[in-house]
């Protein structure tokens, strides 16, 4: 199965990439953009019992794939 993981910067953390992308989009003429946040997307192909895999991925997200000081994460298993 495949774990699809999204890691995004916490609201309180400065996100200069997001700001820069936002101003580029606005410069291109897109209107109504309230904010842009640039994060990361990871896919992990993994075999095993779904519940155990869920626990493993959650632990991996906390320990390595995201830094809880600056980032939030979420994932789905497909």
């Amino acid at each position, binding site marked *: 199965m495949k774990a699809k993981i999204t890691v995004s*910067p916490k609201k309180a*953390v*400065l996100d200069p990439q997001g700001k*820069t992308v936002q101003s580029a989009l606005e410069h291109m003429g897109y209107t109504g953009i309230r904010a842009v946040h640039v994060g990361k997307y990871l896919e992990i192909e993994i075999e095993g019992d779904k519940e155990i895999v869920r626990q493993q991925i959650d632990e991996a997200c906390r320990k*390595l794939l995201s*830094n809880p*000081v600056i980032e939030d994460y979420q994932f789905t298993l497909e």
Partner: protein
Amino acid sequence: MNFAVLQFPASNCDQDAVHVLKNVLGHSARLLWHKENSLGDVDGVLIPGGFSYGDYLRTGAIARFSPIMKAVQLFAENGGMVLGICNGFQILCEAGLLPGALVRNRSLQFCCERVHLKVATTRSGFTRAIPENKLLQIPIAHGDGCYFADESTLGELQKNDQILFQYATPQGMLTDAANPNGSLLNIAGICNKNRNVAGMMPHPERASEGWLGGTDGRLIFESWLQELTGRNKPSAT
């Protein structure tokens, strides 16, 4: 004194650190590959600058799981003194040995310049030899040096006098213009609550010889040596 300078894939300030500890300050320093499990007989550990593991995922995120970091963790828990410079600071934050994190510079640019540092406290084994009110001039060279911590952590840092260095103007003022990377509270370096682990983004090893343009960085190594002279060796692993 015996120092271990850790070496990760893509560390690039390791030789400079060894050079300063050995040839400038006259102590023993050796490189220690990150796959080692033991620090051996050491008085202090230096985690040098560079781009360990190509900064993949986040700066320091992968290096922090290298085998040698377990030994560093234990060494620090036993009171051993550890200094992380630039990427070393990032690794120590990722490892949870220092609070907070270092994120992309506010400008999104790699900052490579000489900065002025206010020494926020001389009450630490890494700053004790610095004369009161002396402003340090030390170079920085980083892309991810913006210090972030949540409000309660920042409050703790202030309350416990854990902020060591802050980016300042040549007059010593902590202004936004003097802040090269957007660090909260202009933080350039901190120590842990026990004051035996410190991290800083500026490179003192690049400011330890007159012919390189300044010797202010030496004061940090001299503080460290002074502190080590006065204490018993922690149990190394």
